[in-house]
């Protein structure tokens, strides 16, 4: 579904990504784990077209998408929940969700998706007329994921959804990630520092170190891998 081939991304003269190759199959949950500054977020931004790769190619469903503007890439069915959630602070919860449907015209299905989301997160339904900036961190993360679901993505990129949240909320959010993967057959590309959690729900995982992919295997195998244990699981 998604292919990255020999991707090299730079910020000025500093190379952030070195020869990245990745494959994501339809219906999978894959995770990309690594330390701070390894290049995980840059990988997502390169896929979305926000940061341009200097070399290499990105293909989505057989179509080259490197060189497209972000709005064109979103229109193809890729959506990202960026790190830090990026809720529009002065738009209400409803308006934030509305922005997720910016490219959609199917009013009937939009209504159904909205019900689905309010079912998933009753808290958002309660606060639908409240400004996004007044929500708590956990609620904002719920809203960010909901807004992404409203775009009906084929591929959902999640950047650190657990960051700064209480363990009970993190568990709830990971349950929902599994749920949308199963129920909507949405392919999930999960970037996490919480490697333990991420590898448990992922079918496959990639390990990134200072801009390069150093390992890739199934989630289970990576969980039991000695190097991964030492470096990322703290065991």
């Amino acid at each position, binding site marked *: 579904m998604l292919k990255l081939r020999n991707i090299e991304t730079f910020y000025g003269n500093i190379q952030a990504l070195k020869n990245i190759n990745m494959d994501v199959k339809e219906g999978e949950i894959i995770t990309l784990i690594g330390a701070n500054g390894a290049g995980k977020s840059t990988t997502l931004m390169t896929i979305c077209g926000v940061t341009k790769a200097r070399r290499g190619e990105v293909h989505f469903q057989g179509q080259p998408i490197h060189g497209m503007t*972000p*709005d064109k890439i979103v229109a193809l069915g890729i959506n990202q929940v*960026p790190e830090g959630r990026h809720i*529009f602070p002065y738009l209400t919860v409803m*308006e934030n969700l509305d922005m997720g449907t*910016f490219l959609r015209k199917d009013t009937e299905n939009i209504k159904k998706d909205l019900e689905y989301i309010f079912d998933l997160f009753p808290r958002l339904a309660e606060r639908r007329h409240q400004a996004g900036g007044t929500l708590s961190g956990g609620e904002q993360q719920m809203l960010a994921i909901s807004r992404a679901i409203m775009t009906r993505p084929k591929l959902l990129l999640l950047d650190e959804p657990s960051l700064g949240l209480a363990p009970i909320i993190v568990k709830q959010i990971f349950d929902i990630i599994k749920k949308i993967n199963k129920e909507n057959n949405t392919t999930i590309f999960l970037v996490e520092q919480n490697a333990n959690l991420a590898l448990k729900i992922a079918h496959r995982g990639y390990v990134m170190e200072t801009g390069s992919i150093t390992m890739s295997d199934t989630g289970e195998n990576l969980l039991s891998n000695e190097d991964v244990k030492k470096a990322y699981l703290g065991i």
Partner: protein
Amino acid sequence: MDFEYFAQLFLGGLTRGSIYALIALGYTMVYGIIELINFAHGEIYMIGAFTGLIIASVFTMLGFPTLAVVVLAGMAAIVYSCAYGFTMEKIAYKPLRNAPRLSALISAIGMSLFLQNYVLLAQTSDFLPFPSLIPDFEFWEPYAHILTSPELVIIITTVVVMILLTFLIKFTQIGKAMRATSQDKMMAALLGINVDRVISVTFIVGSATAAIGGILIASHIGQINFYMGFIAGIKAFVAAVLGGIGSIPGAVLGALVLGWTESFFTGYISSDYEDVFAFLFLVVILIFRPSGILGRAETKKV
């Protein structure tokens, strides 16, 4: 008649404020979305007035009825100003979007000087008489000594424009996209919003309201020249800052406050110091509320 004099000043201030509001909207919307003080915005208003004059003269000569002339001149002015606003953004601001903010500001000042001199060369440096497009309504006759018919039309037009604009910004998808883009450009792009297009629409909407303001004031005052955009632009800018730049209700409120300040000070004290009072008031308000009356204090979460 003390009360009548007060009413006159109040309504005169409301009329002035309405005009300032129509121009201030453009400043505040553009600032809200790309954080640029578009110094060439006053020139868009001037171009609207010139286009209106040319079209109105042509159709009056051809013997069209007054109402048709007003509508045609108004539409032509709006279309022309929008085209200028759109092109200006593409040429002078878009290439500088990622440059330091000072570069874009200098580009805006350059654009302002260019447009003034362009109209000076292409048209004239003289004051041109502008026909009074708005007739004196008979039914309004009993109240005309407090508020003239053209002033009434200015106030009503402004109210209608404000209502339409509020509807656009609050309830339509493009309006919500404008607000979303002004709050977080990257996230807007990640949701499929074409940020460049939203910025263009913002410039077009701001130019349209400026053109309406240009026609109304020109028809009310009765003359125009290439320099008219400068002082009106500065005043409208003051209004936008007064109300809290970036805030649309703020721009309207700031414009009305400015209009009334000028009107009452000139009416009760002296007309020689009109601009002094206006700017003095700005200074006083900014001392106590640095982000303007309705402005949001700049809070950066770390």
